[in-house]
């Protein structure tokens, strides 16, 4: 126990003497939390559209004005032919091509039925799909208005559309940032914790100081604990900073109990820092440790449910995510912060995380060998 205090004293001194670590701990997460949620946004705006208007009628002109004024579309070009429009597709200047046939107004007025053709550039699949559905709904709306107002169509002839009313729960304004910020905070904490710990022991190997440690009677678990605790404390400080940024800049404060956020983060940090130390004990150089940490982080992030929903992943990928501690953290952060979940709701997550923590830390202690 006394040894541990000397070890902690030394680790803290070293951390506070290294400006690179301090920047990584305190400045990097804050900047990322300010910049990332603004950039990482699924709301699609600025969809570039080419409209080929063969009709050149009042109706088609009105439709174009409406699309332009919707705020989602940017009218790029009004080419004469579909072939010309395809050039914009090829150069990635347009995401959607809308072709209005020459008898659009006539058909609509006379036959109460007309066709529009829409082509979608699916290279950016998400943008294209969302754009197409926006366009679709705008045209539907226009269609209904045209029929009721302009054509004075008799009521009974109007097909009664199914009116879908919906309400968003937990993220009332469908504000994408509310969804992203807790998740990004979870990722940042993982990144900072894993990188710093994975580089720590291996740096002592490179400097040769580990040899001086290994000839002392220090106990292996005390050594690992002494390496873990400083970053555990600093991880919680980073979390606090992140929550403050979320509150001040995005106005997000946890609906649930703040203490539960810390409780889970504490267990989560214990697990990820253990993993970082494990990487550090098995690596021979800092470069090696960095690459392993980076490889794992990529998987953790991509299979963590931050950017893509885990529910829509194939079954095998979903099974992989069970072994991803970051997935549980992101879930819990969203549950407590956005949904106001209680300790009872996250009990399963806490249990799983404790298992991760025991597993990684035990492995780290075992793989740290004072002898070769």
């Amino acid at each position, binding site marked *: 126990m*006394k040894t541990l205090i*000397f*070890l902690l*004293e*030394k680790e803290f001194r070293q951390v506070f*003497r290294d400006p690179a670590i301090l920047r990584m701990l305190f400045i990097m997460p804050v900047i990322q939390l300010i910049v990332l949620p603004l950039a990482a946004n699924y709301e699609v705006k600025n969809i570039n559209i080419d409209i080929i208007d063969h009709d050149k009628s009042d109706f088609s002109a009105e439709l174009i004005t409406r699309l332009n004024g919707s705020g989602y579309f940017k009218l790029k070009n009004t080419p004469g032919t579909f072939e010309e429009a395809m050039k914009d597709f090829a150069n990635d200047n347009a995401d959607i091509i809308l072709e209005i046939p020459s008898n659009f107004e006539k058909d609509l007025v006379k036959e109460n039925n007309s066709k529009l053709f829409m082509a979608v550039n699916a290279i950016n699949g998400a943008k294209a799909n969302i754009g197409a559905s926006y366009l679709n709904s705008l045209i539907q709306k226009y269609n209904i208005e045209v029929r009721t107002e302009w054509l004075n169509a008799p009521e009974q002839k109007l097909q009664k559309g199914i009116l879908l009313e919906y309400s968003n729960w937990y993220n009332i304004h469908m504000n994408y940032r509310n969804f992203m910020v807790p998740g990004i905070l979870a990722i940042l904490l993982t990144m900072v914790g894993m990188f710093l710990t994975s580089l720590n022991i291996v740096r002592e190997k490179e400097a040769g100081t580990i040899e001086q440690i290994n*000839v*002392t*009677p220090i106990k292996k678990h005390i050594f690992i604990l002494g390496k873990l605790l400083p970053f555990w404390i600093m991880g919680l400080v980073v979390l606090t900073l992140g929550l403050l940024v979320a509150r001040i800049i995005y106005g997000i404060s946890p609906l649930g109990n703040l203490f539960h956020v810390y409780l889970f983060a504490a267990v989560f940090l214990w697990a990820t820092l253990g993993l970082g130390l494990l990487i550090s004990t098995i690596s021979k150089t800092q470069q090696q440790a960095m690459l392993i940490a980076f490889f794992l982080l990529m998987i953790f992030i991509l299979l963590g449910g931050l950017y893509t929903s885990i529910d829509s992943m194939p079954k095998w990928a979903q099974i992989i995510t069970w072994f991803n501690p970051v997935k549980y953290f992101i879930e819990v952060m969203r549950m407590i912060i956005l949904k106001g979940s209680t300790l009872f709701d996250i009990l399963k997550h806490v249990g799983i995380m404790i298992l991760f923590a025991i597993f990684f830390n035990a492995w780290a202690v075992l793989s740290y060998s004072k002898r*070769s």
Partner: protein
Amino acid sequence: MNELAIKAEKLSKNFGSFKAVDEISFDVKKGEVFGFLGANGAGKTTAMKMLIGISTPSSGKASIAGYDIYNETEKIKRNIGYMSQKFSLYDDLTIGENLRFFGGIYGLSRPDIKLNTEKVLDRLHLQKEKNALVKSLPLGWKQKLAFSAAMFHSPQIVFLDEPTGGVDPLTRREFWDMIYEAAELGTTIFVTTHYMDEAEYCNRISMMVDGKIEAMNSPKELKKQFNASSMDEVFLDLARKATRTGD
């Protein structure tokens, strides 16, 4: 009471088919200054690492301060000090912080640490540099500091791996003064070196060639045995037999 500080019997370490240390046997008495000589790559450092318990032997037996090097390494570690070939104190800590850290790891009390630190600073005339980061010190001072750190918890035996590598003759001389002071207080010194003038300072020396101990005796007897006027000649005579190339 056991009068032997170190006892090794047919101690070996293989890396694959390469026999880094090949069945070496020797004894070191308590309070002795024992020189462990050999060319680069002869296996000195590997042998030392087995003795201090950071490398597991492939075969053979050895005991340090009466403790077995297979099962009692942690007990051994309480009773030995070690100074590595490569400077291995923390560059980003001050002299005082380094001494305090290692003192603390060995279980010294805070008042003892304070007292010993003052002694070391006085002995090395480093009072003014107490709060200087270790990385700012010249190599000679670093080496003396590393030795003091290895001696900080008053070990029975201290292992020094090429402690005077790369330092000037004056500092080497001062370094050996410190070694003698420690020996006079009863500490057993196990030291490797390349410098044959330093070999003369040892009570007894062993010469390692290609992983084996080829000769072992006092410097005087060795010179007689090899019919040489200096230890240099003894060394060259033996080292020429080596078939391994140095590192």
